[in-house]
C-alpha cells in the first residue's frame, strides 16, 4: 500500500498523528477480521442487530420488487396469455405424471417399509420468496424472506422447481441468507445419474457453473450426463437434480478428469423457492435401540423399559419384534406390537 508518508503538504498536515490514527484503525479492522474469520461471531452480531438490518433489507429489496411488478403491469396481454397457457400445459403434464407416479410411489413406500429404510418420497417443504438484495458482487448468496420465526435452521436445503439451489448459511429472525451451489466455497456430493459414479461438485470461480475437478480418468462421464444429489455427507437428501455436465476435459496434471456442469436450478431467475424441512439422514451409525435385550417376561424387572409383549403372539416372536431399529416410524408393521 503506497502511503505517501513524506508528502509535505502545507495546507493540512497532521502528519504523524494522522498516520498513527490510520495505523490504529487499520489494526482494529484487522483484529476484527481475524476474530470474525476465526470465530465466526459476525452472525451473532448480525442476529443481535437484525432489528436494524432486516428493515434495511426489506427497503433495499423494494426496487427490484417494484421492477418486477412493473414488468407484470406493462407486459402485453399476448405474453401474459402465452405464459398462462404454457403454465397450464405444464400443470396438466405434471398432474398426469403425478397420477401415474402415485401408485408407483405407494408401492415403493410399502416396499421400503418392508426393508426398514427410512427416507420417503414425500416432501416436507416451506415456500419462501427472495428479497432482491445485493450482498456484494461475486458473493453467491441470496436473501430469503423467512427466518428463525418460521423455524428455519442453518443447513436447510433450498430448491426450486428444477433442482437444488443451495443451503441456508445464516438465519435472522425474519430473514435468512442462503449460499448458492455456485459459490466457490460450496461443495455438494453428487452422483452421475447414468453411471452411478459418485463425486463432488464445487462452485466455480467464474460464477454460474459447477466444477467437478476430481473424476477418475477411467470413469465414464460424458457431456449431457445428469447430476443428482447422492445424499452422502448427510446435508443434501438424495435424488434431487443438481445440474448437467457440459464438457469434460483432463486436468493439467493428467491424473483426473475435470467436468463443467450447468446448474439445473434457475439460480438468477427464481423468485419463489422451497426450503426442505426434513434434512438428510444423519451420517454415522443409527442410534441404539432402547429396548434391546430379553423380553420383559423373562426378566421381571419393574424398571425395565416398556416392551409390552403382545398377548396374541407367542413369546418366541418377541425378540424379533424388539430388534426393530428405534428410528422406524410408528407406521411400520413391526411397531404394531405396541398395544
Amino acid at each position, binding site marked *: *500500500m*503506497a*502511503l*505517501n508518508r513524506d*508528502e509535505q*503538504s502545507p*495546507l*493540512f498536515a497532521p502528519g504523524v498523528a*494522522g498516520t498513527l*490514527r*490510520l495505523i490504529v*484503525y*487499520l489494526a*482494529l*479492522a*484487522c*483484529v*476484527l*477480521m481475524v*476474530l*470474525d*474469520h476465526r470465530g465466526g461471531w*459476525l*452472525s451473532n*452480531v*448480525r442476529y443481535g*442487530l437484525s432489528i*436494524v*438490518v432486516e428493515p*434495511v*433489507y426489506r*427497503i*433495499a429489496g423494494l*426496487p*427490484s420488487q417494484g*421492477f418486477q411488478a412493473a414488468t407484470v403491469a406493462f407486459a402485453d396481454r399476448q405474453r401474459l396469455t402465452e405464459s398462462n397457457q404454457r403454465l397450464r400445459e405444464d400443470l396438466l403434464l405434471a398432474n398426469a405424471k403425478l397420477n401415474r407416479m402415485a401408485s408407483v410411489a405407494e408401492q415403493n413406500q410399502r416396499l421400503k417399509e418392508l426393508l426398514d429404510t427410512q427416507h420417503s418420497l414425500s416432501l416436507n417443504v416451506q415456500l419462501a420468496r427472495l428479497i*432482491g*438484495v*445485493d*450482498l*456484494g*458482487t*461475486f*458473493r453467491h*448468496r441470496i436473501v430469503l424472506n423467512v427466518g428463525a420465526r418460521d423455524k428455519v435452521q442453518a443447513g436447510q436445503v433450498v430448491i426450486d422447481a428444477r433442482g437444488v439451489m443451495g443451503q441456508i448459511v*445464516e438465519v435472522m429472525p425474519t430473514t435468512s*441468507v442462503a449460499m448458492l451451489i455456485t459459490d*466457490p*466455497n460450496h461443495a455438494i456430493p453428487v452422483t452421475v445419474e447414468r453411471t452411478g459414479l459418485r463425486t463432488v461438485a464445487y462452485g466455480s*470461480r*467464474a*460464477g454460474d457453473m459447477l466444477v467437478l475437478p476430481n473424476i477418475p480418468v477411467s470413469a465414464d462421464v460424458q457431456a449431457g450426463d445428469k447430476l443428482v444429489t447422492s445424499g452422502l455427507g448427510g446435508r443434501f437428501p438424495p435424488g434431487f437434480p443438481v445440474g448437467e455436465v457440459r464438457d469434460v476435459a483432463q486436468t493439467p496434471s493428467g491424473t483426473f478428469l475435470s467436468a463443467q456442469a450447468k446448474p439445473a436450478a434457475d439460480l*438468477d431467475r427464481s423468485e419463489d423457492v422451497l426450503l426442505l424441512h426434513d434434512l438428510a439422514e444423519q451420517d454415522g451409525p443409527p442410534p441404539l435401540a432402547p429396548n434391546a435385550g430379553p423380553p420383559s417376561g423373562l426378566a421381571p424387572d419393574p424398571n425395565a423399559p416398556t416392551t409390552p409383549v403382545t398377548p396374541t403372539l407367542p413369546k418366541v416372536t418377541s425378540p424379533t419384534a424388539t430388534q426393530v431399529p428405534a428410528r422406524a416410524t410408528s407406521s411400520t408393521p413391526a411397531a404394531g406390537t405396541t398395544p
Partner: protein
Amino acid sequence: MNKVRVRQLWFAATLLLSLFLMLIPLPGPLTPFKPYWPALILLYWCLQSGDRVTLGLAFCLGVGADLFDGVLLGEQALRLTAMVFIALRFRSRLRFFPMWQQSLAVLGLLLNDRVLLLLIRVFGGDPLPPPEYWISPLVGAVLWPFVFLILDDLRARLRIHDT
C-alpha cells in the same frame, strides 16, 4: 443553528443512501458494473468538507456496510479507512484538479481499493476473482463527474454551504 442541523442531516442522508445503493441489486448481466457507492460518496465529502470526514467516520461507515453485507466484519472498514486516509492526504491537490484528472485520481483510489479487497480475500482463503472484478473501478471513475456535480448542485440548491 437550524442550518447546521440541515447540513448534518444532509451529510448523514447521503451516507445512508450510499449504503442503500450498495445493497440494491442491478439486473443480472449488469451486476459487475456496479460501482462501489460508499467509496464514491465518501470521497465527495472528503473533497468537499475535509474536516467532517475523519478516519473514524470512514471506519464506522465501513463497519456498518460490513454488517449489511455480512461477509467479513472489518473488511470494508479497512478499505474505506485506507482510502479516506489517502484522499485526505492529497485533498488540497485533488480539489483543484480539473474534472478529468479528478476522475483519474478516483480511478486510482478505487483500483487501490480493489487490490486491498483482493489481498484480504486471498488471505481469507478465497480463490482469485474473475476478470470482471476489475470493471467496477472503471465504472466508478466514469460516474465520478456526475456524482460530484449532482451532489454539488443539490448542495447549492438546498443552500447548505459550509464555511
